[in-house]
Every structure is written in structure tokens, then in C-alpha cells.
């Protein structure tokens, strides 16, 4: 067994189940799920009939590909609770996903769902060093967002203590971290850096805070951000993944090896598909993650398209878990660009820029097709500290950006250095891509 920074513990024996055995379990659960949704959810009843599939015709795991898909738009069209497979009296909880546009999409939980959710969160928390004697500081919002409650239930399940600090008021968070000496911090990755920054500004060395581990999720982040968080807070940082439509946090999480997030495959079937053709991508290639829930009662989902792009890895893990692992989310299908046949994500550009500098400058990607070939230009705002009166240094800065973008994306782009504050900024989410090509 590999050497880890802490004792490798596995919460649930199902995590190290024999693969063949797990597949048999998945198949059995898939059949039951299809049978239930066909009977209880009008959307699936119709879609399954249109696809000509019934529970009886599912003979192997590969048959999942014959099932109809579910999109966020389908959930919206059946707002607010058209996907429930149980009566409302069976619900114990509702949550909603933050719709960036319009109304949220709601999801329901039965008592058994909530119990399952707690167990799934316990799995990744224990994989990431949580022990019953720890105190966990949760700085996630407790609201419609599934992050706060999901992690809360998981920690409770493990038997550790919770400080439900909730979101906001960073000065107070720092005081609580200092005074109550939490071992583990739970929040979004960017908020952990905010805590470090505010601590430093008020004269507190963030490395001296008692926290030793962090479980971060709720937003995409990069490996460079992990390095920064671990350095700033002197902790070990773990990534976890989930989305409310599937169950919330607990769909996947990292172990001590931190070589991808273990997907809880006894409860979900994962597929990694080309978002255009909907065919599986070759192993090791990025594709859209599609999940089918196998045990949820209130709101099972069949082939839910997450729009999250990641890479799957089925190779054995040093920790002993036998589940498939997923990489970080490297992009969203919404912002995926196909440049001369290669899939490129704005997050990759950001990663490349972070390799050149400590913090990524403001940038804008512009795509056009002047003739028959796609041309991508990356406009990068130069910052005062990057500017030199020497032309050779400016050229070399541009060359370094050029090289890193090529090494991350595999494509050649034109790098254009521009003056600060000249690229368009919109409120909230920065506009990163302008695609001039005709669709």
C-alpha cells in the first residue's frame, strides 16, 4: 500500500467492492430505477416509450446507452417538481440549484435519500482525512444550495463535531477558526483564499490557523489554486464533486492519493460522452459527464447531462477503492470551443496564464474563421508588474504565454498583449469568449 500523509480509511466497504460484483449490483438497480420512473414520472414514461426501452430489455450495463437523456432544460420545463417519483407527502427536504438565469431547478429528497446523501458525503470526507474526533468549520451557505446541508449531514454521519459558521463575515470566520481551533474547513475554494487574504490583512498569519485539512467544492477550481490554498493556509486540500440534480455533494470525492475523485458507482452510473455526437469518448479523453442515479427515491434521474467536462480514469487507485475516478471539472459544454477539431476550454487558457504568472491576468478569447481554418486569438491584459521598457522582455513574456497555451491546449493561438482595463468586463461572470464563427 502506498504511503499517505495520513491513515487511509474507507468508510463503506462498497467503495472497494469487486468491480464485477458492483456491475451486477448496478444492473439490478438500473432495472429497478427504469421500472419506477416509467411508472411514476410522466416525462420518463413518454421518453422511454419513444426510445422503445423498458426495464425488461436492460440486459447489460451498456444498455444504459439506449436510455433517453435528461437535460437541465427538461427539468425547467417541468418546473417546479414535475420529476418527482414519489408523492409530496414522502418528501423531507427540497433544495434548489442556483439558476444563473431565471428560476432555480428544485430537487426533492425522501428520508432514505437524505440518509443516502449523508453516507455519500461521509465517504469522501473520511477518504479526505475526517475523523470522529475532529471539529469541522462549515463556511458554506445553508440554504437552497446543497453544499452546506450535504456536508453537514456527512460530518454528522462520521460523528465529528460541526461548527455551522455558514457563509459571510470573514472577520468572524477567522475569529472562530482561531478560538475554536477547527481541524477541517469546508467552503468554496475561492472563499478559503479570501479567508487567508483577510487574515493576513488583519495581521494574522493564515498558516498559523489551526485547520489542517480542507474540503472544497461548489465551484470549479484548478490545481494551481490547490497549490496556493495549501501554501497560504498550510493545509491539505481535497476536491469533491456533486450537483443538486444528481444528489448534491457526494457524487465523487478525493482520497489520500488525490489522483482524481472516486465516483460512488454503486449509486450512480457515469458516462463520459462527446457533447456533440453523444458517443462515449475514448478513455482518457475529456467528455461531458452524464449520470444515472440508481438508488434515489424522490427524484431519480436517467442519463442527466451535467454539461461538466472531465476525464474518467478506471485504473486501480493506491487507496484500495475500486471505483472509477473523475478528474477535476475542466470546463463546461456551454463554453467549450472546437478549434480546428480540438476541444478547448477557457479554463485551460486560465491554467496556462497561471503557469506564466502567479495570478491570472484578465483575458479574452476571440475565435474567427478568416478562410477555412479557425483562428484563435488570446488577448491578455498586461499588468504594471509585467511591463518592461525592454522589448526583449515583453517578447519573452508573450512567448511564454504562447508556449504554455500550446502545452495545455495542444493548439497554436495568437497571443495579443493589450493595455490594462481595455477588455470588456461584465458584472459577475467575466465574458471570456467571443466566437465570430457562423454556427
Amino acid at each position: 500500500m502506498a504511503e499517505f500523509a495520513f491513515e487511509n480509511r474507507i468508510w463503506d466497504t462498497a467503495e472497494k467492492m469487486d468491480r464485477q460484483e458492483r456491475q451486477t449490483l448496478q444492473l439490478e438497480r438500473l432495472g429497478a430505477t427504469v421500472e419506477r420512473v416509467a411508472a411514476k414520472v410522466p416525462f420518463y414514461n413518454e421518453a422511454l416509450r419513444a426510445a422503445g426501452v423498458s426495464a425488461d430489455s436492460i440486459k447489460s450495463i451498456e444498455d444504459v446507452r439506449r436510455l433517453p437523456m435528461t437535460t437541465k432544460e427538461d427539468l425547467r420545463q417541468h418546473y417546479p417538481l414535475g420529476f418527482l417519483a414519489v408523492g409530496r407527502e414522502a418528501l423531507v427536504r427540497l433544495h434548489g440549484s442556483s439558476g444563473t438565469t431565471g428560476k432555480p431547478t428544485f430537487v426533492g429528497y425522501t428520508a432514505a435519500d437524505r440518509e443516502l446523501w449523508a453516507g455519500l458525503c461521509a465517504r469522501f470526507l473520511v477518504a479526505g482525512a475526517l475523523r470522529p474526533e475532529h471539529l469541522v468549520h462549515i463556511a458554506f451557505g445553508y440554504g437552497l444550495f446543497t453544499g452546506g446541508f450535504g456536508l453537514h449531514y456527512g460530518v454528522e454521519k462520521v460523528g465529528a463535531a460541526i461548527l455551522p459558521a455558514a457563509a459571510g463575515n470573514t472577520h468572524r470566520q477567522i475569529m472562530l477558526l482561531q478560538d475554536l481551533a477547527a481541524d477541517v474547513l469546508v467552503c468554496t475554494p475561492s472563499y478559503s483564499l479570501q479567508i487567508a487574504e483577510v487574515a493576513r490583512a488583519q495581521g494574522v498569519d493564515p498558516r498559523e490557523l489551526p485547520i489542517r485539512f480542507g474540503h472544497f467544492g461548489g465551484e470549479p477550481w484548478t490545481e494551481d489554486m490547490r497549490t496556493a490554498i495549501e501554501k497560504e493556509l498550510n493545509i491539505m486540500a481535497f476536491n469533491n464533486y456533486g450537483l443538486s440534480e444528481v444528489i448534491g455533494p457526494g457524487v465523487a470525492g478525493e482520497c489520500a492519493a488525490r489522483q482524481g475523485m472516486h465516483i460512488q458507482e454503486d449509486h450512480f452510473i457515469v458516462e463520459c460522452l462527446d457533447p456533440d455526437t453523444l458517443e462515449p469518448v475514448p478513455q482518457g479523453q475529456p467528455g461531458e459527464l452524464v449520470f444515472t442515479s440508481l438508488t434515489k427515491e424522490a427524484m431519480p434521474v436517467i442519463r442527466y447531462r451535467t454539461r461538466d467536462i472531465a476525464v474518467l480514469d478506471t485504473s486501480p487507485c493506491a487507496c484500495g477503492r475500486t471505483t472509477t475516478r473523475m478528474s477535476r471539472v475542466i470546463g463546461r459544454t456551454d463554453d467549450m470551443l472546437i478549434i480546428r477539431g480540438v476541444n478547448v476550454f477557457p479554463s485551460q487558457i486560465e491554467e496556462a496564464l497561471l503557469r506564466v504568472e502567479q495570478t491570472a491576468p484578465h483575458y479574452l478569447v476571440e475565435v474567427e474563421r478568416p478562410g477555412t481554418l479557425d483562428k484563435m486569438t488570446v488577448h491578455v491584459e498586461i499588468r504594471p508588474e509585467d511591463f518592461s521598457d525592454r522589448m526583449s522582455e515583453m517578447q519573452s513574456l508573450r512567448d511564454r504565454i504562447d508556449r504554455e497555451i500550446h502545452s495545455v491546449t495542444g493548439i497554436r493561438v495568437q497571443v495579443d498583449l493589450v493595455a490594462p482595463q481595455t477588455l470588456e468586463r461584465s458584472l459577475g461572470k467575466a465574458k471570456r469568449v467571443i466566437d465570430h464563427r457562423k454556427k
Partner: protein
Amino acid sequence: MKLNQLSVFLENKPGRLSEPCKVLAQAGINILTLSLADTQQFGILRLIVREWEQAKVELEKAGCVVNITEVVAIEVADQAGGLESVLEMIEAADINVEYIYAFTYRSGDKAIIVFRFENPDAAIETLQGKGVNVIGPVALYDRIGQ
């Protein structure tokens, strides 16, 4: 003995050169000399002005990226071989020159050249030791006047 040179980042687009010049004009700051280094996409405008601190503040207020570098003004004979003889000394002393440009101003039979050295202090010491006239800011502004 060193001059503070302003460098301004410029995008290579129409109108970009006039922006910083307009800022300086409005602040009543006279440009004593300048040089422009450019590529297809961007350029670096280097300026010598008397009120360099004020110029930096004004330019930054207008959104320019400005950087201050120490350069050296050297008097050379305004005749064939004048610059060459100084360059020879510089080369012989193994001093690294990043770039040079000239002042439009001349006094008598002398021209003034701006040198950006990798190590300006070492360069000044060497050149003065060889009898070359290095012109400090006070003397320079005195000569050029307003």
C-alpha cells in the same frame, strides 16, 4: 547622473500613440525626447520629460501602464565617428547596452545620446573615467531650458 525615463505600453492600433501625448500636453509637460519600439501587436513608448513624477501620476490616472527606468545621457561629438568612439569604449569595457536614442537638441558641436545600460552605475563610472561627459538631469534641463 542618471535620468528617469518613462516607458508607456502601447497597443499597435490607430490613435494609441496620441493618447499619452495628449495626457502630457494637458498637464503642460514638454517631451524633451522620445523613442518608440514597436512590434506588429504592441509598442513601447519611451519618454524623457523634466516632470517625470507628475507625468507618471497623470499617465497612470489615464489608465496607462508606466514604468520608470534609469537611463544615462552622454555627450558625443556631433561629427562622423563621434558616437562610434564612445561605443568603442563601452564595448571594450564589456558594458551591456539595451538600447539608445538621441536628443533632438544639440549644443554647439555636441550631440546628446540616451543610453539604457544593463548596469548604469558601472557604465557611468567607466565612461567618466575615460573622460566622456555624462550629463545629469540638472545640467540637461539647464541646457535645454523650457
